[in-house]
């Protein structure tokens, strides 16, 4: 276990050190102490290493992650794991706005609640939130899976493309072009796998699936009031 004191040694040194780890590195386990809400912690990593952040972070923790497993023993600010490509990001606490925004791959697990716009413009990432999510989540979400074990706020899945949304609790309202869809066996299978990997003990059968009605994919003047 390598320990990096962020307060003492600075952000540039942390990211440069973690980014320089190769795929074959022996130093696979890292601990970041004294994060104290700093921004851009452990961004741009590209090696199969494990990084544990001992406390809460600011904006864009684990941004554009590839391969690495990053665990935050606290809460995270806006844009955690934004544009993640692969790997895993696990947040013990809550997440602020835009969690997993535009993510292309990998798994983001939030054990607390996520704020508004969780999964905005997601493009293939899988996100599992143990608690609730805020309004406008999965706005313009293109691909991937968003699993919510709690409740969803207003305008879920507004202007949704092909992402799949699974919500166990209530949905305050659905956004434009987002509809409840049939839960078929293949969806239950996807959901079970994600719940298992995220350490969530909910049963897939308790969820409802939401997706795009695909009515806004091509402009139609009769839908103008929907936009």
């Amino acid at each position, binding site marked *: 276990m390598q320990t990096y004191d962020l307060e003492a040694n600075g*952000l540039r040194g942390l990211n440069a050190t973690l980014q320089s780890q190769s795929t074959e590195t022996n130093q696979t386990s890292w601990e970041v102490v004294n994060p104290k809400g700093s921004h851009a912690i452990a961004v*741009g990593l590209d090696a199969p290493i494990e990084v544990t952040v001992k406390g809460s972070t600011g*904006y864009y923790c684990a941004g554009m992650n590839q391969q690495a497993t990053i665990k935050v023993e606290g809460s995270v600010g806006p*844009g955690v794991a934004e*544009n993640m*490509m692969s790997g895993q990001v696990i947040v013990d606490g809550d997440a602020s706005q835009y969690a997993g925004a535009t993510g292309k791959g990998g798994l983001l697990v939030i054990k607390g609640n996520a704020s508004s716009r969780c999964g905005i413009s997601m*493009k293939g990432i899988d996100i599992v939130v143990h608690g609730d999510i805020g309004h406008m989540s999965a706005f313009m979400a*293109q691909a991937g899976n968003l699993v919510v074990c709690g409740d969803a706020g207003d305008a879920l899945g507004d202007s949704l493309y092909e992402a799949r949304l699974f919500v166990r609790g209530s949905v305050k309202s659905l956004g434009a072009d987002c509809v409840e869809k049939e839960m078929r066996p293949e969806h239950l299978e996807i959901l079970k796998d994600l719940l298992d990997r995220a350490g969530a003990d909910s049963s897939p059968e308790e969820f409802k699936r939401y997706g795009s009605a695909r009515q806004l*994919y091509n402009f139609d*003047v009769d839908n103008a009031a929907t936009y």
Partner: protein
Amino acid sequence: MKDMDDQIPRTLPIQSATFTNPINAEIRRAAATGIYDIRGGGAKRKVPHFDDLLFLGASVSRYPLEGYRERCDTSVTLGTRFAKKPIELDIPITIAGMSFGALSGPAKEALGRGASAAGTSTTTGDGGMTPEERGHSSKLVYQYLPSRYGMNPNDLRKADAIEIVVGQGAKPGGGGMLLGQKISDRVAEMRTLPKGIDQRSACRHPDWTGPDDLEIKILELREITDWQVPIYVKVGATRPYYDTALAVKAGADVVVMDGMQGGTAATQDVFIEHVGLPTLSCIRPAVQALQDLGVHREVQLVISGGIRTGADVAKALALGADAVAIGTAALVALGDNDPKWEAEYQKLGTTTGAYDDWHEGQDPAGITTQDPDLAARLNPVEAGRRLRNYLKVMTLEAQTIARACGHNHLHNLEPEDLCALTMEAAAMARVPLAGTSWYPGKEGF
């Protein structure tokens, strides 16, 4: 009786200056279709522009440089504020962001070839970086857009600079638009979208709002790229003083200011013609902001929107810009709106010089299309050579003017070299009306 009527003077038919034929045609089109007009390009309306300025040239008080004997340098370095590797360009004319998707593969290749041969940079667009354009561009600026289509850290690290796009002159406050006709298999895959849909990009970034967030976003991008490459912030010209100041405050290395004549691949005509500022009007406020913050020339200013000639380049630089970017002009150099395609333009209901349905993907010149047969019409090597020639000519023209004004570098051009032909241009450019020492708003008069 009829003979008498013929002797009465008649009132001639008078066309309304308000309800003109084009306006009436648009009303009829809207009534028939129920959708606003979408087109490519920039503002077509006449606005005060560089044509309304003149250079004064040398005189008794200033002496010129010999045209073919004395050097007039043209190089510019962008990103000297924070980047470890600023971009060094041979000429202060860059190629603006245009996407693969909006443009064909051969057109993107031609832009890369032409820009590289002229010693300048080209820029990606909404849709990500293709291996072809990276391969053919010696200096490539990677746009970081609200849609984040194709965005990934590997391409980010291949870029020579990153341009965070807040807005563009054709549609400040609007997002990108690529209609279904141009969403081919490859474009769809790069954007993670279903084929054939009307794709509307977001108008604002998904994970930051406002200048305080932007500062943190810039920090993140610098951390991911090891502070190696410059970070530009591009805005559509609306509030140039404050937008420039806020971009500087957020940590930008370069500010790109795009006026309303700047083109787009597709957006609503009402947006193009009625939102934003003319390019001429946004330069002095942007420069003023840089000067007030003590960073003029440390944070470079790139101006775009309607740059066509070396005279336009020289005038933008004289007003304080460090470089310019061209988009529409570069496409024309490649072959867009060429008279040789007139018969085909006629079939599309338009004519040479007016063709702007770039969103429909039927471009006879093979530039704004994803149709493989049409795209094959553009030879990227020859088109790249034309672009290189055009960039060289613009540079020679700008040098000609600079030498005539007595300057041994294009960056030594200054507002004092200029006068204005109209009150509007004098007010916007803050240079005297021709033959006077006054401009509207100048103190002391």
